[in-house]
């Protein structure tokens, strides 16, 4: 009986399984169940779960909602590379903020407060993008046609970068956004 020959025992399925093998199978099985339960446990007791709230949308609809949010909440502007104004929108505590992903920018700059909970609406106006918050290292896929409402509570003050980590063309590496946490 070798792995490249037909089993020498014709009734191989009637051969007993050794105790050690049974033990290892049992360990693997129980460990699988632990890992499975862990994900469910974290949904109940953990504090880092990705939101289930998402809606179908269109680039036009999402852009309109985001522009309205920016118009109502801009507190100042910063200069971009070519001297253009980039609005800094302060998201109302406990309220909703909008973040547009598009070729090749995250728009606008968001300002949050530590310890407050925000509903950040994420969507893309063109290709897939990747919301990668650094140096916290939270990574969320941003897909055109889907508005993802992610509840976030910043735990530390600072200036954070949003790296795009889904390949989106030639300018991908320059797609860097910003979030301030005061």
């Amino acid at each position: 009986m070798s792995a490249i020959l037909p089993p020498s025992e014709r009734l191989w399925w009637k051969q007993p399984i050794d105790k050690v093998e049974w033990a290892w199978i049992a360990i693997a099985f129980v460990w699988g169940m632990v890992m499975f339960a862990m994900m469910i446990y974290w949904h109940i007791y953990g504090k880092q779960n990705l939101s289930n709230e998402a809606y179908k949308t269109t680039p036009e609809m999402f852009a309109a909602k985001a522009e309205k949010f920016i118009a109502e909440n801009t507190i100042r502007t910063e200069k971009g590379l070519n001297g253009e104004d980039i609005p800094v929108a302060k998201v109302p505590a406990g309220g909703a903020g909008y973040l547009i992903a598009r070729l090749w920018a995250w728009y606008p700059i968001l300002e949050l407060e530590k310890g407050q909970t925000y509903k950040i609406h994420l969507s893309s106006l063109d290709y897939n993008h990747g919301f990668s918050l650094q140096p916290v290292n939270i990574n969320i896929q941003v897909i055109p046609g889907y508005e993802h409402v992610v509840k976030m509570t910043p735990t530390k003050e600072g200036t954070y970068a949003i790296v795009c980590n889904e390949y989106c063309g030639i300018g991908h590496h320059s797609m860097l956004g910003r979030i301030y946490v005061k």
Partner: protein
Amino acid sequence: MATTYRTCPVSGLQFEDQAEKLMRWNAVAGVLALLAGGITALLVILTRWPAIKLLPADQFYLILTAHGVDMLILWIIFFEMAVLYFASSTLLRCRLAAPKVAWAAFWLMVVGSIMTNVAIFQGESSVMFTSYVPMQAAPHFYLGIILFAVGALIGCGIFFGTLVIAKREKTYSGSIPLVTFGALTAAIIATFTILAGAGILLPTLLWSVGIIKEIDAQLYRMVWWGLGHSSQQINVSAHVAIWYLIAAVVFGAKPLSEKVSRFAFLLYILFLQLASAHHLLSDPGMSAEWKVLNTSYFMYFAVMASMIHGFTVPGAVEAAQRRKGYTNGLFEWLRKAPWGNPVFSGMFISLVSFGFLGGISGVVLGTEQINMLMHNTFYVPGHFHTTVVTGTTLAFMAVTYLLVPVLFKREMILPKLCQIQPYLFGISMSVLGLVMMGAGTLGVSRRHWDMAFSGAPFQYEWPGAAYLMMGLTGIFGVIAVIGGGLWILLVVGSLLFGKKLDGGKVSDKPTPLPANTQAASAVAHGHDHVPVPGTVVLALLLFVCFVLYYFVNWKYLSEVWLLS
């Protein structure tokens, strides 16, 4: 169709003429794809190495697309076709079903490969291996992959047909060998996978020529990964089958239990299909329930299968060695293993690296919430370079040292270099995978041209450790490319200049597998049971690493912003 059968004097294996030629041609096509993939790998590495940054952005993304397609699709699947023909026609001593159709399938795959590569190098299809819509490639990019996939699907059909013929013509008695069973698993998964691929790439092709107006970006990701991830599960099944094959050939090892090993393969068939979810864990469009159930392969039953193989393969080797008298202590069987034989060393490094690095990182990465720490970071390619490369590719390289003399009737040239190649490639690639995962843990993105974000309106400075990891990625990446290049050189060199070996006698009729061949009698041990304490220790070590690393990542997760 008249055909002949050759019995190899070295191995006792019997090769049917058409199957043998198909195996050779598929293997050679695979090696050519590996060569293209290797050259592009070097360019990718030298660009991501921050100190060198060789290519401009547009060329980098083009080359990265080519690297993904040539390695993950073309090299692996061409070689797998050879494995399927070997596991059916050769191991069952049977003629190949419909050899003309098999040739048509091969040429379809060749045409598809060339077409997709042409599309990529024309520069209008730098969409990455994944080609997420609505980013659009040239129509012949999709068409090439479709043709290739159709060819591969036909190849699977030939494999199934050959099994049927072998059964009908009674070329063997009893059940098919375990290795053939593993190949059957691979072929069944391949069939599902390729159908999923057709389900998304056909509409995408129509969309690229303007017939379909829009494809939902989330739907694309879900169905595409039914191709993209499941096709890596073909690899797992194929390389696990090769581990068993090598253990059988080098040690005369028999499976500890046919029942357990086959059951583990069956679990692959039942649950590996769900893996598409691994890529959608941080997506908006699926519910948490869907993610949890699918990402765990329905409660980790496929992970359990891999853990079983991870025990039974070294266990079979240990049992065989102990029967030969290497019974001192826990590990004499391993110390006295033929470490100078590249067939064995390649297989064993493949086994260890796949288990400890690729396997553990894959499960952690595929945990629903933990995925947010790693999604689309450099961790992801770090993970799959320790599964598809040190796992599958290294296993394929190892078995090639066996196949060159047997299938191509040539002696390997430069045996000293053959001895070191698996170590050079396997170890450098394992370290490469580790440092890539390290960089990913620090947040560094995959598929990203510039860590310094030139041209961005803001600045972000990665931690110094991330630059260190990327520098190490460069160094070990170059060593790995040298190790891979050395393999290509040795194989091609042996095919061209190796000493010709006697092919053995040729007959018009197949010799069926006798109930007790010489090969079988050498390994027929009856029911004697050999304990395998060394394997138990190794398996427990794996388990401890697994548990620790798993919970460390939950700890990391608990420290980030609160999300709900």
